[in-house]
C-alpha cells in the first residue's frame, strides 16, 4: 500500500507523538538509550501504523507479521509505538525501567508476553528472525503472507553471529524475511567507522545473497516503499539499510554518539519536548 500525501502527514504526526512519549519516558526513568530510540521512530511508525499485519487487540493472532527487535536497548521506541498503536495504555510508558514494570529496561517476554522476543545482548535477533522465517517456510512456503521483520543496529553488525544468520537466510532464500539496519553510524564508544568500520556495508549483505535497499530512514515515503518493494522480491531475503540521524527530531541530540546510552535530564528534556511539540519552532507550542 503506497502512501497518499494525507497519510504521509498523518504518519509524521504520529511519529512526533511517539518521540514526545520517548523523551517523557526516558526522563522519568532516569536512564536508558535516547539516540537510537529517536532515530528509529519513523521506521517503527511506518511498521506499526502502515506496514505490519497485526491486531493490537489480539496480540497473539497467529497470522500476524513478526517484529523482532534485536538491539533491545532502543525499546523505548518499541514500547511507545506499541502503546500508541493500542497494545497497552500510553500512560503505562511512564513506568519504563521501574521495579515491577511490564516495560523492562531491555524487553522481557515474562513481563510483557505480547513481545515477540526478549532481547538485549546484541547480535542474536537476526538469528531468531531467521528461525521464525524458516519455521514459516516449513509450514506454508517462503511466499507466505506472514512476514518476519528483524530490526538491527549497525553496531551489532560487528557481532559474528549476525553474519552466521545472514549466511543461513541467504542459503535458504528466505523471501519472507526483511532486516532493517539502523545505519546511524554511532555506538557506545564512538562513531562506527572509528570503532570498527562496517563499509562497504551493502556489498557485505549482497555477498550473502540478500537483496539490498538503501533509504533515508526519516522519509516516510521511502520507508513504506521499501517495505512494499521487499514483498516483490521472491528469491532472497531483503535488507533495508536505513540511513538515520542519531537522535533525530531533537537538534541538540542529533549526530552525537554521547546520546547513545544516556537519558536527557529534566532541563534537556523540557527543551527537547518544546522542540518536538513545536516541530522545531514551525508551530506555536500548544497548537
Amino acid at each position: 500500500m503506497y502512501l497518499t500525501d494525507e497519510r504521509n502527514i498523518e504518519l509524521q504526526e504520529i511519529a512526533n507523538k511517539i518521540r514526545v512519549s520517548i523523551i517523557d519516558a526516558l526522563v522519568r526513568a532516569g536512564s536508558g538509550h535516547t539516540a537510537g530510540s529517536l532515530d528509529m521512530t519513523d521506521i517503527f511508525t511506518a511498521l506499526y501504523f502502515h506496514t505490519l499485519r497485526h491486531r493490537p487487540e489480539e496480540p497473539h493472532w497467529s497470522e500476524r507479521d513478526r517484529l523482532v527487535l534485536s538491539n533491545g536497548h532502543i525499546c523505548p521506541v518499541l514500547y511507545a509505538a506499541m502503546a500508541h498503536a493500542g497494545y497497552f495504555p500510553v500512560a503505562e510508558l511512564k513506568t519504563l525501567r521501574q521495579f515491577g514494570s511490564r516495560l523492562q529496561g531491555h524487553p522481557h517476554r515474562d513481563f510483557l508476553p505480547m513481545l515477540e522476543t526478549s532481547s538485549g545482548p546484541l547480535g542474536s535477533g537476526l538469528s531468531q528472525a531467521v528461525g521464525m522465517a524458516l519455521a514459516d517456510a516449513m509450514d506454508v512456503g517462503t511466499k507466505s503472507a506472514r512476514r518476519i521483520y528483524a530490526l538491527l543496529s549497525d553496531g551489532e553488525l560487528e557481532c559474528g553471529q549476525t553474519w552466521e544468520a545472514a549466511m543461513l537466510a541467504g542459503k535458504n532464500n528466505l523471501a519472507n524475511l526483511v532486516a532493517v539496519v539502523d545505519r546511524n553510524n554511532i555506538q557506545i564508544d564512538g562513531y562506527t567507522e572509528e570503532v570498527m568500520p562496517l563499509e562497504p556495508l551493502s556489498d557485505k549483505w549482497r555477498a550473502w545473497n540478500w537483496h539490498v535497499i538503501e533509504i533515508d530512514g526519516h522519509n516516510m515515503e521511502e520507508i513504506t516503499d521499501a517495505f512494499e518493494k521487499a514483498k516483490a522480491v521472491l528469491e532472497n531475503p531483503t535488507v533495508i539499510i536505513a540511513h538515520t540521524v542519531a537522535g533525530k527530531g531533537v537538534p541538540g541530540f542529533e549526530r552525537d554518539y554521547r546520546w547513545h546510552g544516556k537519558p536527557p535530564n529534566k532541563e534537556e528534556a523540557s527543551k527537547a519536548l518544546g522542540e518536538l511539540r513545536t516541530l522545531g519552532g514551525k508551530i506555536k507550542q500548544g497548537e
Partner: protein
Amino acid sequence: MLNPDLKLNKKLFDKDVEHAPIRKGFGEGLLLAGENNPQVVGLCADLTESTHMNLFRDKFPNRFIQVGVAEQNLASVASGMASMGKIPFISSYAMFSPGRNWEQIRTTICYNNRPVKIAGSHAGVSVGPDGGTHQAIEDIAITRVIPRMIVISPCDTLEAQRATIASVETGTPVYLRLAREKTPIMTTKETPFEIGKAQTFWQSDNPQVGIIATGALLYKALETAKKLEDEISIEVLNLSTIKPLDEDAIIKLAKKAGRIITIEEHQIAGGMGSAVAECLARNYPVPMEFVGVHDQFGQSGTPDELIEHYGMGTNSIITTVRRILKR
C-alpha cells in the same frame, strides 16, 4: 543386589554385556519423537552423523536445518523456530553447544522461555584421542545454573532414547548430555524412566555407603558395589536428571547410608556432586566424597586410560569407598 523392579539388563555383569554409544540413543529417540510429533524439528552445526541426527535428517529432510559451523546461530535460530510452535532439537558437541553458545542459550532460549532441546555429545574425558579441547567437563555446571533448564545425563543408550522422547513434552528447555564411546547397556526397554526421578539400581538392606552416579560411570559404581558386596554394603542411585534434582531420593539415601559418594565424568566444581552437596547441606549433612575431574583439562588417550588417569576408574572408586568409611 540389582533392583528387580527396574527390569535392568540381566547380562549387566557379564563379560559380553552389550555396548552402544549414548549419543546413538539420542539419534534413535529423536527419530521416534519426530514420527510421533510433526512439530519436532532438528538443527545441526555440521556434526549430523556424529550426533546421530542423520537418522532424523534422512527421514524428515524438510524438518532438518543444517546451519554450518555456527553454534551461536544454532541456538538462536532454534529459539525463533520454537516461537512459531516448533519443538527444536539442536545438536553439536557439548564443548560448542552449550559451551560456545552459552549466552545465546541463556538469553534467547531460557530467558526467552522457548522449549529448545540441546543435545551435547562428546561430554567427558572418554571422548579419548581428540584430546582436551573436545572433552566437555564443565557442561553440567554451566547448564544447571540457568533458570528453567532441565539437565539430563543418561546412563546408557536406552535411557538416552527415553530421555529424548520425554523431553519433547516438557515445554521447557532441556539439556541432554551425551557421550561418544560405546558404553555398557544397563537398562532394558522395560526399565521405567521419568524426568526428575532418581532410581536405585543397586539395593542394600543396611547400606554403609550411598553412591550417587550419573552418566556411563554408573556402570563402574555398580561394579564396585558388586565387587565389595561381601565386605561393604553399598546402595547405588542413578541420578540421570540433575535438574530438577530428586531431593527426596537423595535425602532418603543419606539418611539410610550416612555417607555419600558422587561419581560423574565432569569437573567436581559445579557438577552433579555439587548439586547433591547443596541439597544435603541444607537438609541432611553427611560426610561426602566426590569422584570426578579435579580442576584439570583433559588430554589424548584411550577412554579407559583417561578415566583411570583422572581418578574415575573402579579402583579409584573402591579407594574412595574405603576412605569415606573411615570418616
